[in-house]
């Protein structure tokens, strides 16, 4: 591990799918402990960025680092938690089996204790023996969130984390994530969620860096009565 000042680091990263350029010389940093929202229009490259950060895709050029380590390294895997959009846990396993299996896979010391804690914290106790294939979408999302944080990650990557959750559960998850230490990067289209879960924004468009700053700074880019969504839309439109 080199520098620990950045939780997440992308430098001149490019990635294409066949002839489609998904990321084009993208660079941005997120300091350790930073809470950032990743904003961008559809097809901006947000999901590709997250997939590069977890090491399931590799950049063609440039470098990607998590706490100074390459995403595919053991060091990085030990500290990263990831929740994809529409996350699917193992359908053949029960809720408890999913949590225990992933906790064991991640080398969590007290697998049972951590599983029990998350089952209670996310109101999943009633479903602990349920086959995941039979859970409602909301309960599946709760389980997916629990699986992403089962090892108390230092860097948490979340793609639309509050999808499918009812309002009380959203509040519970927001409070839980707020209590967690570490670097968070939340990909979302909903500014209200970005505002609740983060304090800063990285905006990308067409695979390129567009803007970075705090949500307050973003708000100041518009008139006082202008909704922040309009400001974001204007900035994204300006980039296209």
């Amino acid at each position, binding site marked *: 591990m080199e520098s620990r000042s950045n939780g997440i680091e992308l430098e001149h990263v490019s990635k294409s*799918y066949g002839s489609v350029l998904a990321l084009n010389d993208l660079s941005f940093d997120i300091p350790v402990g930073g809470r950032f929202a990743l904003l961008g229009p559809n097809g901006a490259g947000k999901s590709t960025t997250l*997939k590069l950060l*977890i*090491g*399931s*895709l*590799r950049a063609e050029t440039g470098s990607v680092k998590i706490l100074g380590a390459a995403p*595919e*390294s*053991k060091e990085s*895997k030990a500290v*990263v*938690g*990831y*929740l*994809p959009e*529409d*996350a*699917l*846990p*193992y*359908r*053949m*396993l*029960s809720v*408890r*089996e999913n949590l*225990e*299996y*992933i*906790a*064991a*896979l*991640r*080398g969590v010391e007290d*697998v*049972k204790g951590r*599983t029990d804690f998350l089952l209670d914290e996310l109101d999943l106790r009633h479903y602990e*023996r*349920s*086959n995941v*294939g*039979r859970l409602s979408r909301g309960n599946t999302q709760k389980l997916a969130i629990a*699986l992403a944080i089962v090892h108390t990650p230092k860097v948490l990557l979340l793609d639309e984390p509050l999808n499918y959750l009812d309002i009380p559960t959203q509040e519970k998850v927001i409070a839980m994530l707020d209590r967690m230490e570490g670097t968070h990067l939340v990909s979302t289209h909903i500014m209200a969620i970005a505002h609740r879960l983060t304090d800063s924004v990285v905006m990308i468009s067409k695979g390129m860096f567009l803007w970075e700053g705090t949500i307050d700074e973003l708000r100041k880019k518009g008139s006082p009565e202008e909704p922040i969504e309009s400001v974001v839309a204007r900035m994204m439109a300006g980039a296209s």
Partner: protein
Amino acid sequence: MLPKLLKFVIRTRFSRPLLILIAIMLVYFAAVSTLIPSQQANLILGYYGTGIVALFLAMALAAGGVMIFKSDRDYLFTLPLSTRDLSIAIFFSQFIGFGITILFMFGYLYQTIASPLLLVDLVALALAFTSLGVIAPPMTTRLRVALSVGLALWTLAALANFPLSPGAAFNGNVYGGTVTIIALAVVTTTLAFRSLSRIELDMMRSLVRTTSSDIKSPNSYAGKSPVGAIYSMNLSNMSLAGRMNMAGTSRYISRRVKTRWVVATAAVGAAAYFIYALQGAPAPAVSGTDTFSGAILVAVVLAFFSFFLSQSAITNERIWLSLTALPPAIYFRHLIASRVISLMLILAPFAAANAVLFALGYGVALGALGVVLAVIPGAFVLEICWAAYIAPIQVKGDDMVMAAQFSLRQLATALPLGGVILLVSIASIFPVVAIAGGLFLCAVSALLTMSGGFWSRVTTKLTENGFV
């Protein structure tokens, strides 16, 4: 309206290149069949035909399902269409996806079966195969498994010269067998159409078989190391079919089965094979033709079984969980090793049966032993690697099939099966082929399993193919 609906249903399930390929393959097999001497074809048909019919009828019932997409439920079923037309269209697409598989299986023997009666048998079998898949979903698992086993045993009874068996037509009893197959087709097709036409549109959902609600005896992974957890998960349970790729069809079996039950079933099968082999060739060191044929039949069935098992290895994987926890090379290496051990547990009773037969003086059992110990496990790993690399598909929901799954690439994942069937058939007769072929397959499998670069490329492919 029906022709338009038929066209729509077929086009939404099968890619145009796949439909063209299906047509080409049917013609190709017919042409190839003219090159096979009819006497030889008849010999193959007796055991191979009976075995294939038993396996496919049982699988159709055990793994049954109807090809319905989520988009069908959301849009097609909400249109003001006649239930009758909808039933016919769905049945016909089901026929292309599943029933036509029978025609591929017997393709190179067309010349032999070109007699009108046997041709009727094939069509009736295809109808029965299609219909069983439609009838199966509402049944309980126990009933489905019991009926599958019953159906397989009834078909295999043809090998004991029982004339009123679905396999009898391919084993010398043409008339009795034909009457039986036609009766089976009439009953199952009637039931299938009744099932399709009676249901309210919303009830179509019930045809998509869902998983059970609770896991009755869950496993615990507390106290396990990361690698220990992988072995524990894959050795205790198995998903038997995962993805089936006959004619490009992709399907998912969501019920998990305790490995010990599968091993127990395999032990019963191996015992039956052992007794049959002894009865077929009572005197050791005799030419033992029946032992050959029984061994080939068992080897082919095991090769099919291991193929179905191989298709579930990657299909049910969740890379956002497993590959963010461990490096791909390490995770996949242990995943495959645990799956191979699981397969070997199932094959062990057959290996023991062949070993005892060999010790009793049945020299030919050595080939079958090599097939079970090396050829099938080696091929199993290669089938996993091939499917992961060529056309990985992740099963995400309860839908039995998903749009865009019926493609040439999907069909390509089944291609190695043809080579494996050929190899196990020859290797069951010639031990030297079994040993050499088995060693070669195991060596290639080991190299691929240990290759970090290969699994890194597979991870990229999985991600780019939409794996979550």
